[in-house]
């Protein structure tokens, strides 16, 4: 099936910058501008601007408990304080992850739900079906999203948005006026560096992009650099590391599951908790510069025991790094693994996450 790619409002600007474009989650997205490693390095040391308009945004307004929102996710929504956000999952009956998402508490009776691009239509349908009341709206098409990430991002943001941004703590957001509209500025991101996610009207996002790029500390970065950055700090990528066949327990993400609450998939997770997950996510470091890649085999004792779900050469670590799934008895720090694919073979060792520990994310 030939699917028409969607374009973000900034697409023309990427082309003018000679970006390498590729389809991602149904969207025509910039993969790199000057080069993945140069963009990665800029984000770790200065401030990088990412077009993230492809991600989905939904608004729910109503009674969280009576309308069923409180029982939708693996975490409580009504206990999120105003101006804060929380990360967690929407699950299927088997405990598999339909999506990982962030809920922003906008008002007493209102939240914004931010979801992955490829899963947005599916998420909207599932949530809409499970809700029993309230109003639920997909605002993706009218919402632009930019991420400004990197240790110098705070100084850039203060100059553009004002002093109020300076003291914004991690996982909190504020609404600010800019370019004649209201924008949501959130201290969150996907790079392991201090940074912000900015939500603004789609017809203003190009102007904001230009404004942020006027600062010489800011350069654009593509999804290629974003993938290296997120993997170095061990963040999961939906569709690669987690999916509907993977539970949060298998993926080592039970910290984002509140077992006190009620949610679809809870019974399956409790069962898995009791019986033990059949496989566990592991992080591993390669003994050399080769990159493990999605779909490569993970072997132990000459047998294939699992699959790599994400892998890359890490400029910060200086070796290949990856994550994948193996039987629980092998998911122990220090366990040797062999990563193989056709005639490629590399030795690796199970290690702790994050791979890169010195990011400015909480700075």
């Amino acid at each position: 099936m030939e699917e028409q790619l969607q374009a973000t409002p900034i697409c023309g600007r990427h082309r003018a910058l000679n970006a390498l474009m590729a389809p991602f989650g149904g969207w025509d997205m910039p993969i790199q501008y000057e080069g993945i490693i140069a963009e990665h390095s800029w984000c770790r040391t200065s401030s990088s601007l990412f077009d993230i308009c492809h991600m989905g945004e939904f608004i729910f307004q109503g009674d969280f408990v009576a309308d069923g929102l409180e029982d939708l996710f693996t975490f409580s929504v009504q206990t999120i304080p105003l101006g804060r956000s929380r990360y967690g999952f929407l699950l299927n009956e088997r405990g598999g992850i339909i999506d990982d998402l962030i809920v922003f508490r906008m008002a007493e009776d209102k939240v914004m739900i931010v979801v992955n691009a490829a899963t947005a239509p599916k998420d909207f349908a599932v949530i809409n079906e499970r809700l029993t009341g309230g109003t639920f709206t997909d605002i993706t098409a009218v919402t632009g999203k930019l991420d400004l990430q990197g240790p110098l991002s705070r100084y850039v943001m203060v100059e553009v948005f004002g002093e109020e941004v300076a003291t914004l703590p991690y996982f909190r957001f504020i609404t600010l006026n800019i370019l004649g509209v209201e924008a949501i500025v959130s201290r969150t991101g996907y790079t392991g560096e201090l940074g912000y996610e900015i939500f603004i009207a789609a017809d203003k996002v190009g102007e904001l992009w230009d404004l942020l790029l006027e600062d010489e500390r800011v350069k654009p970065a593509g999804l290629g650099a974003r993938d290296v950055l997120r993997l170095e700090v061990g963040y999961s990528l939906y569709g690669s590391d987690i999916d509907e066949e993977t539970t949060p327990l298998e993926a080592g993400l039970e910290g984002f599951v509140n077992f006190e609450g009620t949610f679809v998939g809870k019974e399956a997770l409790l069962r898995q908790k009791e019986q033990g997950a059949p496989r566990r996510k592991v992080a591993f470091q390669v003994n050399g510069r080769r990159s493990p890649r999605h779909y490569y085999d993970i072997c132990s004792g000459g047998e294939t025991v699992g699959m790599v779900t994400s892998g890359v050469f890490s400029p910060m670590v200086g070796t290949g790094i990856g994550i994948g799934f193996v039987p629980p008895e092998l998911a122990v720090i220090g366990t040797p693994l062999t990563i193989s694919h056709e005639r490629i073979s590399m030795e690796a060792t199970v290690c702790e996450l994050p791979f890169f520990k010195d990011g400015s994310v909480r700075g």
Partner: protein
Amino acid sequence: MATFFTKEHEWVTVTDGIGVVGISDHAAHELGDITFVELPKIGAAVTQFGLLGSIESVKAASDIFAPVSGKVVKVNDALDSAPEVVNESAEGAGWMAEIEIANESELKNLMTQGEYDDYLKTL
């Protein structure tokens, strides 16, 4: 001294029966940031269009094929710790190996610089 190219984007510069081998500027640009180069072993016998080594970038892993048959007599060890040299100078400092050419008549299976430039326009 003359330089020839393969359809798989390797080059070989021939001087006195020795061929210096690498990948083309075009190939290096297409691969993007190169993070690892697997060099052949000194003394290894290679055959024209057979496996010589491999190269990895952030985006992909690719095999490198020998443009000529012969024996590997020298490799560019500097690429072990600095593979990015291939991005900076694929057809110069980013050379990969020297091959003692077994049969110079094989060079007729390769493209000249002009032929390769024309070939790139068809891709």
